[in-house]
């Protein structure tokens, strides 16, 4: 068990800078999720921590030791790969025992440790099987078993669930969470799936184009997205983003349709400033009044537990509304909706950063 510090880490491929300086200190036992769209550099960052990619600049420190120039085997980490990367010619037992054998762990201890891991992961019955005789979920458990028998300082997960079907993914996600709670090993987990990020993480590092957009707990990232990118990436259906202008008094924002939304606190300094206005679909309610805007209902998706309404504002901008329960409107209806008080997110119109609350 150890801390993992990433200090101004950079990665360039020739003139192309893939990681543009990431800083984060992962606490002992913390579960950090690296979240971002494909190509954002999250896997590269993880592979640099693992030692599978060279580090162009900055430092990776594991357990107080700078590991930049250490081989993967000397970094005391274990990694779980997206395609499991099991050794196909070895039995489940040998897959888990491989790393211990190399490290010269005595045979009886190998057997105890593998047996213990197999018990935790319910793999006891499969120890003599080959990976090809296992299902996807079982293979993923073997991959995790291989990681936990080593008792490493840190776990690295590289999209471990994305090869599984939806149901199994949910199940394995819960298992990973339980396992990490139980073992308390520092974990770095790469995913593009926001549900995995929200449910597993102690903290999320949202990445985009090689830059850390935001670092925070799942709720912070959801409640106070630091940029338009984070706002759009976290939450499903995604946040509505509208152009607005703060009115002359700094008391409210003028919506495209002319509706005036009151601000949680007055912003006299920002008077007449154009802003991007973020409203989550779940924070819109049907209401009349000053803050309400009329919308035309274009499509209604009934998901059972809740309903997503695709509406259009008078000026042509689309607006998503998520309502609890079964639909109360149909296509072609006119509704009047308003954001819940205090549910507005304001971003700078030019660079997309969140305005100070």
């Amino acid at each position: 068990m150890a801390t993992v510090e990433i200090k101004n880490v950079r990665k360039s491929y020739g003139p192309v800078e893939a990681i543009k300086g990431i800083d984060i200190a992962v606490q002992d036992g913390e579960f950090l999720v690296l979240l971002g769209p494909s190509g954002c550099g999250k896997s590269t960052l993880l592979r640099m921590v693992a030692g599978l990619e060279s580090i162009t600049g900055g430092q990776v420190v594991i357990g107080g030791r700078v590991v930049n120039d250490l081989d993967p085997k000397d970094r005391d980490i274990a990694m779980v790969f997206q395609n499991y990367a099991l050794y196909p010619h070895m039995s489940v037992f040998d897959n888990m025992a491989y790393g211990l054998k190399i490290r010269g762990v005595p045979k009886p201890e190998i057997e105890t440790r593998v047996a213990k891991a197999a018990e935790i992961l319910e793999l006891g019955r499969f120890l003599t099987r080959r990976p090809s005789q296992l299902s996807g979920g079982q293979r993923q458990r073997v991959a995790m078993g291989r990681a936990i028998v080593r008792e490493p300082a840190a776990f690295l997960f590289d999209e471990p669930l994305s090869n599984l079907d939806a149901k199994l993914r949910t199940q394995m996600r819960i298992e990973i969470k339980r396992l990490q709670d139980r073992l308390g090993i520092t974990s770095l987990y790469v995913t593009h799936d926001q549900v995995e990020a929200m449910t597993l993480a102690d903290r999320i590092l949202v990445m985009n184009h090689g830059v850390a957009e935001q670092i925070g707990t799942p709720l912070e990232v959801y409640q106070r997205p630091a940029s338009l990118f984070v706002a759009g990436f976290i939450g499903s259906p995604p946040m509505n983003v509208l152009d607005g202008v703060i009115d002359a008094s700094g008391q409210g924002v003028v919506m495209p349709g002319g509706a005036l939304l009151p601000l949680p606190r007055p912003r006299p300094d920002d008077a007449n400033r154009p802003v991007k206005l973020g409203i989550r679909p779940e924070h819109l309610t049907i209401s009349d009044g000053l803050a309400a805007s009329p919308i035309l209902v274009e499509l209604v998706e009934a998901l059972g537990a809740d309903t997503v309404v695709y509406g259009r504002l008078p000026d042509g901008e689309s607006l998503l509304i998520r309502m609890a329960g079964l639909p109360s409107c149909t296509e072609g209806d006119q509704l009047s909706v308003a954001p819940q008080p205090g549910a507005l997110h304001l971003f700078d119109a030019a660079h997309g950063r969140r305005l100070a609350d």
Partner: protein
Amino acid sequence: MQRRVIFDNKLLPYLLLAPQVAVTLVFFIWPAAQAIWQSVHIQDAFGLRSEFVWFENFTAIFTDPNYVGTLRTTAIFSVSVTALSLSVSLLLASLADSKIKGAAVYKTLLIWPYALAPAVAAVLWMFIFNPEIGSLGRLLNGWGYNWDYRLNGDQALTMVILAASWKQVSYNFIFFLAGLQAIPRSVLEAASIDGAGPVRRFWSITFPLLSPTTFFLLVVDMVYAFCETFGTIHALTHGGPGKATETLIFRVYQDGVVNNDLGGSSAQSVLLMVILIVLTTIQFRFVERKVHYS
């Protein structure tokens, strides 16, 4: 999962198989049958009459003291060629599989020898090893090493082994490279995180995963060494000096075409066929067990 194909037309499957069957019949079954037929006959020198002699040709082979020598030469030759071409090509393929500059050029160059006719390859080796005009041959003699493969049987055998292996390295290389590239990189990465160094990774991960390719090439190379090296030997040493480089296949030619003993030559080729069948069966029975097919 294998899917069973069902044809509506009863004739179509046979038609689809026909070309392959025809090729096998014309180029394998027919000549093989003819060889068996001739192996139990003795022909006169002009090929006008032949006489059925039961297994006299075979008895003659087994009582010929020279035949043991040929068997020994063939064994040394085939094992050496197979081992040498497999190991060298595996080494080259492993090197080519790593990220290097100019990998494409390097790969292409390595494949060239395969496109050379055996006789051309032999001439090339002659230019290297000839004691009077060959670059290396002259160098060796210049250093005081008495090199002349036309007089020294061991040297001649070494040279044909080198030349024959060199021809086969290209072929093996392509298959090994393809095999190596089929191994998921993440499996090797997992092994390096598990603590395995490059050598250990190779022997405990890469080599076992490559075993289907290696086994296939083992069988192919063995057959190559037994049968397809005739041209190389013929052009380089004519089986000499003495009988130092006379392998079974070369002797089949020597006795049949040069010495006009068609019956004896056929009996030898039948024996050669039996030896290859036995060897291949052994390989499939005992070596293939250790092969991992994913």
